[in-house]
């Protein structure tokens, strides 16, 4: 049962993820955003299969519930028309390939280093309490830095959007 669900959710994640960036039927940005929602929800399904309920819930709440709604908001307000057929330029293609290869290389290296199939933990320790304990003891400095970073980002956005704030 679990295996079956894993294959269903993985397939959904991959297919929807592919349709976000390269949908053969339409180049409508809203459709891409909606497929991104589906990708995120099926990824939340994968988290649930790992018993990481907290991550699954937060994944849906933050990304599907807030971030992509804001994406939609911007797409709709700017009234982005269907993206025109891009004419590819050599520079872009080379740069893109370079980026793809380096990220792919890193991924493959990480996967090989992790030793696939050796001492598997069937569950991630994903209870809310454990996560909170870890965040506020072992990882308190990165956690606080992240908080400051977000605050700085927020203030920056307010400053940029209020032009008469001098």
């Amino acid at each position, binding site marked *: 049962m679990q295996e079956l669900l894993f294959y269903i959710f993985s397939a959904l994640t991959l297919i929807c993820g592919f349709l976000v960036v390269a949908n053969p039927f339409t180049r409508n940005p*809203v459709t891409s955003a909606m497929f991104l929602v589906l990708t995120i929800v099926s990824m939340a399904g994968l988290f649930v299969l790992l018993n990481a*309920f*907290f991550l699954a819930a937060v994944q849906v*709440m933050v990304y599907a*519930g807030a971030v992509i709604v804001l994406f*939609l908001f911007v797409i709709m307000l700017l009234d982005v028309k269907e993206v025109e057929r891009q004419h590819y330029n050599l520079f872009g293609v080379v740069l893109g390939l370079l980026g793809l290869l380096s990220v792919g290389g890193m991924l493959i290296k990480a996967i090989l280093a992790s030793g696939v199939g050796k001492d598997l933990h069937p569950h991630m320790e994903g209870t809310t309490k454990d996560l909170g304990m870890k965040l506020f003891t072992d990882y308190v400095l990165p956690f606080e830095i992240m908080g400051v970073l977000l605050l700085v980002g927020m203030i920056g956005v307010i400053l940029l959007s209020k032009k008469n704030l001098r």
Partner: protein
Amino acid sequence: MDFLNDSSHWGTFLFFSALKVVMAFAVVMPMVAYSVMLERRLSAAIQDRIGPNRVGPFGLLQPLADGLKSFLKEDFTPSHVRKVYFIIAPAVSMIPAFLTIAVIPFGSVMGTQAMVIANLNVGILYTFSVVSLGVYGIVLAGWASNSKYPFLGGIRASAQMISYEIAMGMAAVPVFMLVGDLNLGKVIEYQANGAWLVFKQPIAFVIFLVAAFAETNRLPFDLPESETELVSGYNTEYSSMKFALFFMGEYAAMIAVSALMVTLFFGGWTLPFFGLNEAATSIAGGIAHILVFLGKVACFMVFFIWIRWMIPRFRYDQLMDLGWRRFLPLALANIIITAAILWMQHL
């Protein structure tokens, strides 16, 4: 049917879960229908009218007639809409409201079965994540209609719902600081052993209540569909059953959020007298608990409807001001005060 008494068998789990899902659906759908009727009768009483009283005794069969009418009306799709989204939007707006009900304990136990569809230990986070998906139906409807009033309604809805979601989430945090668990069953247990949380966290309750009005797009915060400026907002272009789905989605969301408030602040299925505070030992006790829960939800529904006919609509800037500049700081202060009190108790 032997496996029904073997609680470890997966078939038992599947059977009872399916049964509970069907039962919950069978209870919520008529509740939706009769809330609409209640709304019409109550508004009539408030405005010194009579209201629908022709169909059946006291007009009690009115929802049936309404439903039939929705099905029989012409389902008109304007030519300028974006078809796919136009068709899926009503369904998308209705599903989250029903998904929310999955984690809410609507009774204690019946036999060996706990009366909750999914006993998740991150119950409330699940609820908030599902509630946050509710905005898609309205936004997509507004955009897919491809005309200006629905579009403005959709844009308003997305901004409003994101804003009040934050206030709502923040308001619920102190509750879980007191309880020490995210499981909604534990929240009810905590309240059964002490006082209802509305007495311990009145500020949290008020913020949550107001945010609930904004999340369900009810007056005084029904700006996404305000008739006077936007005709009917996001559902202007909809007709027949598609319109009815939006309508039902709104009432289902009201029921879901009422059930959530009953669970978080009003003790869920418990009552502090008649020994209804403990898990039921008999089938009759189990049914009594479910009836107590439904009764509390019904009280909230009446309150929701009553408010609609009593308070005029807010202006949009007032709505945003209230959400971001009043409620959010208040909710944060409430969290800090609760933390301080808990800390002092542990000294």
